């Protein structure tokens, strides 16, 4: 039955990708239907789960034995517990909304059927990732989402930039995937298994060194998939994909897989404090990194991508805090799934109305022309900056509090970083809001000279935005109410109350102050003043941030040039040494062959002589054997 959750979208992907052109007309509705079916099944499971007590909620389903080898047992088996359930609902719920949105967004695309096939494939892989009961099967889902992401980023493959972005995402992700593979190898050698139950229950038996190694490799995997420093460079470029893809995969779901991985492997990290520290550092660095990049981008989607990076930084940081943070990491993940998906869909709606213009400097004053988009985007905006009472406020506030509760100097530093992050978040989001919806029109004709005529998007696009806006507003409060979310996850992730040196009220007040500072600064800069159509040169930091804080330059100089040099030397060595040896061998054999061939001269007499000689040699050898 759990298999159906994965099976429905997988069926959709198979039918759509193999079905051919006859499905062009109705295929996208089939995809929506199967995605919706998966969601309904998920809800049924959820209701069923609510009916049982906390410790009795984990379901297990063994489908078949995958690699039945003595001493190496890999199964295709699913585990549906509260953590997986949360992800299932998020993935299928947001996924279904984005399927519906895409019906409108991709209406004129000739390859729409394929697009929906890929979307279904992504859903299936992502569900497999969160439902697997062992790391090996998780790895299958992990690679599956990587594939779907690659296919969807490069969906408009005729655009060289999209093709390059897809390739980049794939390559950077390979680095992380290698980390996951190594982590699984280490688990197998350490625990003799890679199923969750035996590994996580016996985690404390292993030496700390091994656990740290496993933890760091898992973190590397998480960095790749969740675009954390130092493997963050692909996410900005991934915005080349269609906007629904950015919303679903590169904001709400797939990029949070790293958070899932770390939370799921909590038992390993709990026993490896050094690995946890690295996790926290990565999260904190990325949090600021993404936020700064987000401030400088003029491309609306890239600004949002920077924001995604930064928000996932929050989650990773929270996950690195251990049992005081896991639940809040997941809670922020879910609320973020709502408001970030909503923001991306809003951005897509704006682009839809503006002839696919992405430069915010060419927007302005759109609130009158796109009222629904404005309101839903605005609610998402308020949620992400943590406006009191909305989703983001509750989840982010909890993380900041937990960061302080880490204790000691570390706690103060982390608390300060998260507060600073909150202020910058407020700054860059206000900037996006102001440049897009407020101020005067700065519209420009597109490449073909068509003047933009901004208009509200069709129903199929606005309804998902409205639904997501509801989520952005109410989800946080619902989760916080009576600590329902924390209690829900507690059997899986454990929970400890952190002891913050600051009172909850003080933290909340500080958060609100940071928020006000951020919004105010941005409003002064972008709301009150006219936004220039061409970006000013800007300070050194701004210019660096526009170039993604020089990450690509770094990668290019260190990795690309280094790699090129390495390959060149290897090719040289291959040509000279290896080929030399191979060609030399071939020439030797060829020459030998030609010489031996001459013995075959066609005369029966010389054949007889060779037989006779051979016989003599063999007899001599036989006798000699005895003599020796």
């Amino acid at each position, binding site marked *: 039955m759990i298999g159906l959750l994965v099976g429905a979208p997988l069926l959709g992907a198979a039918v759509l990708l193999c079905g051919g052109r006859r499905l062009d007309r109705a295929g996208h509705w089939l995809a929506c239907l199967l995605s919706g079916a998966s969601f309904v099944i998920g809800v049924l499971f959820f209701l069923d789960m609510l009916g049982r007590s906390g410790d009795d909620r984990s379901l297990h389903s063994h489908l078949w034995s995958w690699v039945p080898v003595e001493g190496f047992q890999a199964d295709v088996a699913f585990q549906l517990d509260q953590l997986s359930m949360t992800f299932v609902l998020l993935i299928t719920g947001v996924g279904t909304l984005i399927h519906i949105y895409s019906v409108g967004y991709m209406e004129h695309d000739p390859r729409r059927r394929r697009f929906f096939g890929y979307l279904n494939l992504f859903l299936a892989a992502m569900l497999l990732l969160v439902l697997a009961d062992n790391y090996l099967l998780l790895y299958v889902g992990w690679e599956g989402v990587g594939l779907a992401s690659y296919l969807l980023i490069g969906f408009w493959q005729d655009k060289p930039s999209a093709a390059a972005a897809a390739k980049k995402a794939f390559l950077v992700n390979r680095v992380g995937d290698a980390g996951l593979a190594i982590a699984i190898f280490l688990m197998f050698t350490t625990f003799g298994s890679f199923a969750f139950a035996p590994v996580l229950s016996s985690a404390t038996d292993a030496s700390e060194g091994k656990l740290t190694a496993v933890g760091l490799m898992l973190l590397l995997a998480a960095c790749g998939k969740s675009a954390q420093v130092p493997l963050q460079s692909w996410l900005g470029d991934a915005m080349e994909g269609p906007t629904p893809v950015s919303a679903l995969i590169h904001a709400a779901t797939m990029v949070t897989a790293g958070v899932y991985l770390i939370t799921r492997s909590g038992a390993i990290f709990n026993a490896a404090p050094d690995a946890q520290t690295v996790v926290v550092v990565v999260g904190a660095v990325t949090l600021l990194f993404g936020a700064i990049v987000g401030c400088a981008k003029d491309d609306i989607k890239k600004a949002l991508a920077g924001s995604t990076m930064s928000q996932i930084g929050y989650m990773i940081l929270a996950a690195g805090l251990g049992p005081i943070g896991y639940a809040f990491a997941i809670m922020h993940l879910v609320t973020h799934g709502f408001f970030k998906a909503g923001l991306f869909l809003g951005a897509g709606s704006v682009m839809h109305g503006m002839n696919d213009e992405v430069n915010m400097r060419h927007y302005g004053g759109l609130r009158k022309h796109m009222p629904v988009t404005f309101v839903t985007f605005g609610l998402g905006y308020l949620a992400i900056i943590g406006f009191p009472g909305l989703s983001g406020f509750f989840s982010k506030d909890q993380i900041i509090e937990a960061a302080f509760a880490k204790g000691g100097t570390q706690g103060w530093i982390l608390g300060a970083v998260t507060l600073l992050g909150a202020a910058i978040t407020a700054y860059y989001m206000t900037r996006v809001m102001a440049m897009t919806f407020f101020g005067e029109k700065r519209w420009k004709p597109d490449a073909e000279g068509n003047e933009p005529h901004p208009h509200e998007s069709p129903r199929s696009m606005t309804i998902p935005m409205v639904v997501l806006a509801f989520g952005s507003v109410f989800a946080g409060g619902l989760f916080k109410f009576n600590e329902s979310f924390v209690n829900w996850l507690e059997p899986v992730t454990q929970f400890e109350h952190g002891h913050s040196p600051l009172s909850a009220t003080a933290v909340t007040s500080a958060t609100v102050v940071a928020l006000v500072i951020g919004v105010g600064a941005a409003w002064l800069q972008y709301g009150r003043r006219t936004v220039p159509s061409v970006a000013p040169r800007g300070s050194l930091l701004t210019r660096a941030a526009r170039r993604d804080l020089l990450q690509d330059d770094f990668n290019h100089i260190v990795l690309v040039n280094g790699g090129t040099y390495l390959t060149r030397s290897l090719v040289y060595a291959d040509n000279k040494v290896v080929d030399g040896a191979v060609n030399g061998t071939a020439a030797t054999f060829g020459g030998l062959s030609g010489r*031996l061939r001459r*013995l075959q001269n066609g005369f*029966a007499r010389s054949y*007889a002589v060779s037989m006779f000689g051979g*016989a003599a040699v*063999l007899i001599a050898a*036989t006798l000699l*054997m005895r003599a020796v």
Partner: protein
Amino acid sequence: MSALGSAGAVPSLWMVAEGEKLKAPDIEFSQLSPTLIVLGVAALGIVLEAFLPRRSRYGAQVFVSLLGLAAAFAAVVALAATGSGGTKAQIAGMGAIAVDGPALFLQGTILLVAIVSVFIFAERRLEPSAPGAQVDSFAAQPASVPGGEGEREATKAGWTTTEVFPLLLFAVGGMLLFPAANDLLTLFIALEVFSLPLYLLCALARRRRLLSQEAAVKYFLLGAFSSAFLLFGTALLYGYAGTVNYSGIARVISNADATTDPVLAQTMGNDALLLIGGALVIMGLLFKVGAVPFHMWTPDVYQGAPTPVTGFMAAATKVAAFGALLRLLYVVLPGLRWDWRPVMWGVAILTMLAGALVAITQTDIKRLLAYSSIAHAGFLLAGVIATSEDGVSSVLFYLAAYSFVTLGAFAVVTLVRDAGGEATHLSKWAGLGRRSPLLAAVFAVFLLAFAGIPLTSGFAGKFAVFKAAAEGGAGPLVVVGVIASAIAAFFYLRVIVLMFFSEPQADGPSVAVPSVMTTSAIAVGVIVTIVLGVAPQYFLDLAGQAGVFVR
């Protein structure tokens, strides 16, 4: 002279004392039925040839041959089913013939090969330019002078040499006896019984008759030479042991038999006689399997003989000769293992390397396959040297797998033709994959099997043989074998590249559209190759059950 020599429990047919009453030999006809059926049908074929009108000979011969071979195969299966291959294995014909697992397995293989060969022999639609004409691979009237008036007339009259079928059957009869022979004289007689028809068959090519006759003469001369080796070795072994019976000789070698024949007191127990005699007998067999340095006849004969005969020879002779070699080494000379193993190591290494190396520079497809068969003889020798039950069964499996690949490959060669008959020069094969994709693909399957690529029977066979050799302590031999395989892969793949990735020649050959005969022969080859490659276990088990010689 003591009665019955020193053969002990098993009475020898060949040693009857003076003054003793000659007893009629006790023959177990049912046990020997496969050989008897085939020889009987061969004799019937001669009668048919003499009494039937020319027109109806072909149909009758093909029918009778197939029926006889099928009946003989049924007899083999029946014997195996009643346990003669295992628990009830015994020595029949007064100690002359063994009926045991290896013998029955090899006889079954030879009979199946022979059935498929009859199909290839019977193909009569080999002229692509004249689809209606009845053209087979054999000379219209072999006795006529090549290129002479007689030949022209015979061709014009549409005569065909239907004697090939009885000749084939006689050869098969000898081959059935060869691996089952349990004394050295029976071995020699079996050798001659199957060799003489083969010499004749080699001379019967319809095209390039001079080359064909030259091949036959060479084969005959060198074959006679090697027969002399075998016979001389037999004499020496008799001198050593006082018997020609396999188990009798083995007992003398292991000193189990203390009685000494007074007449042979001078020679019995003389180790020099044993070593030289054993080596000479082995050499006689190595000639037949085409091992270096007794391989020189192979390329010339394979090239000159009519291609169906080449295919039959390459497949069936190898099966029979390896069977005899196995029995000789495992039943007669196991006590001498430490003497013959190092020498056989050398022979196997030389055979693998020389076969693979010289094949690289071949330009004629039939010669290439000849050298390939030499290399394969080397691989088989590696399994023989294992001296274990696994070694025997791996060689049995390899032989079965290899013979069908070989038959199929040569059957394909018969179909690629130009004005001068078969277009055997490799340059003519360029681009064949574009003109006849199916035929080229089939040939590619056979080549891949020769090269030992997984999912073909060649891989399963080679793996079994190398595994047995490695477990039998012949690790270095396996290393050489793998290197030789790599070299061999080169020239097999080169042909595939040539067929599929080269531009076809303007005056390239055309491919005959064969009748159901060759088609089914090739189909059998492909099916066996794939089945033994994909699901070899059943047949490996079968060969495994047949791995014990009766003594």
